[in-house]
């Protein structure tokens, strides 16, 4: 029971990666915008302190790329965009997610029936 929160954290981390790639598949975006887009998605519990390191890791893995764009005020912003490799990763990840979710769903239904 003690480890439950740890496990949920692990699970969330993987799902957050999926969500992040999803968000960036639609359009390139920068840190603050990404964080505020994910914030309302309660169950994800994705704060800035999780999102930024994850962005960096996905960039290091080649799933995301960055470019800078001038902003109306302040220094230029770093934008993230999904790479072709990131798209492939997202598609594979999503297939896996759907398959796994359906298994969990089926098993829990059987549990109810029994």
């Amino acid at each position: 029971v003690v480890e439950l929160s740890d496990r949920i954290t692990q699970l969330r981390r993987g799902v957050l990666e999926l969500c992040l790639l999803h968000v960036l598949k639609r359009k390139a975006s920068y840190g603050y915008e990404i964080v505020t887009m994910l914030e309302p998605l309660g169950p994800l519990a994705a704060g800035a302190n999780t999102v930024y390191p994850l962005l960096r890791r996905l960039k290091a893995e080649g799933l995301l790329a960055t470019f800078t764009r001038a902003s109306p005020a302040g220094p230029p912003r770093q934008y993230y965009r999904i790479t072709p490799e990131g798209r492939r990763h997202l598609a594979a990840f999503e297939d896996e997610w759907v398959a796994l979710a359906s298994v969990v769903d089926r098993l829990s239904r059987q549990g109810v029936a029994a």
Partner: protein
Amino acid sequence: MTKSDPVVEAYLARLRAHVERMSPAEQQAAVDEIRRHIADAMAAGEPSDVVLASLGPPEDLGRAYDMATVFDVRDPPGPSKTAERVFALLAIVALGGLPTFLITIISLSIGTAFLTTGLVMLVAGVAESVGPPIALQMPRESPLVALGVGVALSSTGTAAFVGLAAYYWLIARTVRRFVLFHGQPS
């Protein structure tokens, strides 16, 4: 922008101090990005203390960045300060210079002399065992002696060359590990 806010600057300084595994350039990029995040959030009307609270302690954020670095394939962790590399190179030159000089000269001399003599003895031994005696072989022993000595000498000579090559390989590996790729070879 947020340069004026000492609390924000203190936060960023602590963050920088706790991001240890990234290259200096990436460390800078991370700190700049968090600085930009704070500025964006404050521009959207959030007070700085709320923004900093949402980021959590800088130590934790730094650790999270470091954890993300663990998964890096393209960016091996480690310090990559130029001064450190220069000192490492100087240390290697200072410690390894004289030994390398001596080992090179001695190994090359032994290798060349022994291998050449050994091969000549071998040829002489073979020639003598099939033909008439050759003046080259000073004591008039059986051709087998010339063959045996030839094998021994040329083995020693070859061993000297192999030893020298191994030594150079070791030096090259040391330089590569401690000087060239100590940090991120960006």
